[in-house]
C-alpha cells in the first residue's frame, strides 16, 4: 500500500483519498437539481457550478479504480459474498443502523477536516503534513474511546 501511495505522489503529485469523490458527487447532484442553490452556496460553489466539472475529476476516477481493485482482490481471495458482517451478539438491523450513523458522521467529519483517514491522515502523513498528523491522532484517539463505549456492538 505504501508503494501505491508513493507512486501516486510521484505520478500525480497527490495522495490517495476516498471522501473527495463523495463530496464532488453530492455537489454535482445538487448542481443538476438546483444550480442556483449551488451558485449561492459558499460551499458547493467551490466544487460545482460554472464551468467546473466535478464528475470529470481525478478523485472520481481514483475511487472507481478502488472499487475495481478491491473487487479483483475479492475474486482472487474468494471473498465475494453479499452479506451483513456483524458480531453474533447483535442483529443485522442494529449493525446497519450503526453503519449508517457512522457513514453520516464520516460525511460531516471529512468535510470539516478536508479529508478522511486516507485523504487527510494517511496521505497527509506521507508528506509530513501537520494537519494530517493532527487529524490522524484525533480520529484514532477518539475511536479508541468511542469503541470502548460501543464495545457491546463488537465483542
Amino acid at each position: 500500500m505504501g508503494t501505491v501511495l508513493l507512486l501516486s505522489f510521484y505520478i500525480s503529485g497527490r495522495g490517495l483519498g476516498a471522501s473527495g469523490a463523495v463530496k464532488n458527487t453530492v455537489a454535482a447532484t445538487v448542481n443538476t437539481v438546483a444550480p442556483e442553490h449551488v451558485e449561492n452556496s459558499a460551499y458547493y460553489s467551490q466544487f460545482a457550478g460554472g464551468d467546473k466539472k466535478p464528475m470529470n475529476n481525478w478523485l472520481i476516477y481514483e475511487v472507481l479504480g478502488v472499487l475495481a481493485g478491491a473487487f479483483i482482490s475479492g475474486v482472487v481471495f474468494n471473498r465475494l459474498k453479499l452479506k451483513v458482517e456483524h458480531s453474533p451478539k447483535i442483529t443485522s438491523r442494529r449493525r446497519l443502523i450503526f453503519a449508517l450513523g457512522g457513514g453520516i458522521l464520516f460525511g460531516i467529519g471529512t468535510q470539516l477536516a478536508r479529508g478522511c483517514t486516507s485523504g487527510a491522515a494517511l496521505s497527509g502523513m506521507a508528506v509530513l503534513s501537520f494537519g494530517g498528523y493532527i487529524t490522524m491522532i484525533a480520529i484514532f484517539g477518539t475511536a479508541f474511546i468511542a469503541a470502548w463505549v460501543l464495545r457491546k456492538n463488537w465483542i
Partner: protein
Amino acid sequence: MQHGFSVKIGFNILSLKIMIGPIISSGIVSPAWDNIFAVILGMGFGFALESSGFSSSRKIIGTFFGYDFVVVKVFFTAAIVASLGLLYLNYLGLVDFSQLYIQPTFLTSAIVGGIIMGIGFAMGGFCPGTSLAATAVGRIDGMVFFGGMFIGVFLFSESFTLFENMYYSGSQGAKMINSAFGISPELFTFFLVLAAVGMFYGAAWVQKKVKKVEY
C-alpha cells in the same frame, strides 16, 4: 572508448531529468493521462486494502479491542514507506517536494473533524476507503456506510454557514510536522520509524494477552 563512456553518462543524466516527479504537473506526461493513472492507482489502492483484510469491519475494529492490529500496522507502514520514499526521491532529485500537494492545516477543523470521524469509525467500523473495499466485495454494511457518507456530506454542505467559522479557523498554511518540532524532515521520519517499531512490538504483546475474537 572515452567518447562512448561520456555519451552514456550524458544519456543517463538526461533520462533522470525526464522523470522528475510529480511527472504529471511537471508536464513530462500529458495531463490527459492523469485520469488514467487515477484509475490504475485507485485499483492498486483498492487491491491493497481488500487483500489486507480491510473489507471486514470486525477485523478493522479489532485494533481498538486489541485482538487484531493488522489495520494499524498496514496504515503506519504505508505512511512510513511513502514518507521515506518521498524523502529519498527528493534527495536523489527525482521528485520535487514543493510540487506535491500538502494538505493545508486548519487546526480547529482538523481536530473537530477528526473527533467526529473517530466516533463514526467506532460506530460504523469503517472509514471511507475501507467501506469502498467492503462494498466492492458485497458487504451490505459497507454499502450502507458509504451511502451514509453522502447524507453526511449533504448535511454539512447545507448547513455550511453554521460550520463556516470553524472551517476556516486556526489556519496555518501547508505546515509540516517536523517544523512544529523544529527538526528536519529526515530526523522526524527517523523518530517515526523508531516509534512505529516500538508500537508494533507493543501491539504484538497486547494481542497475546487479549482473548481471541472469532470473526
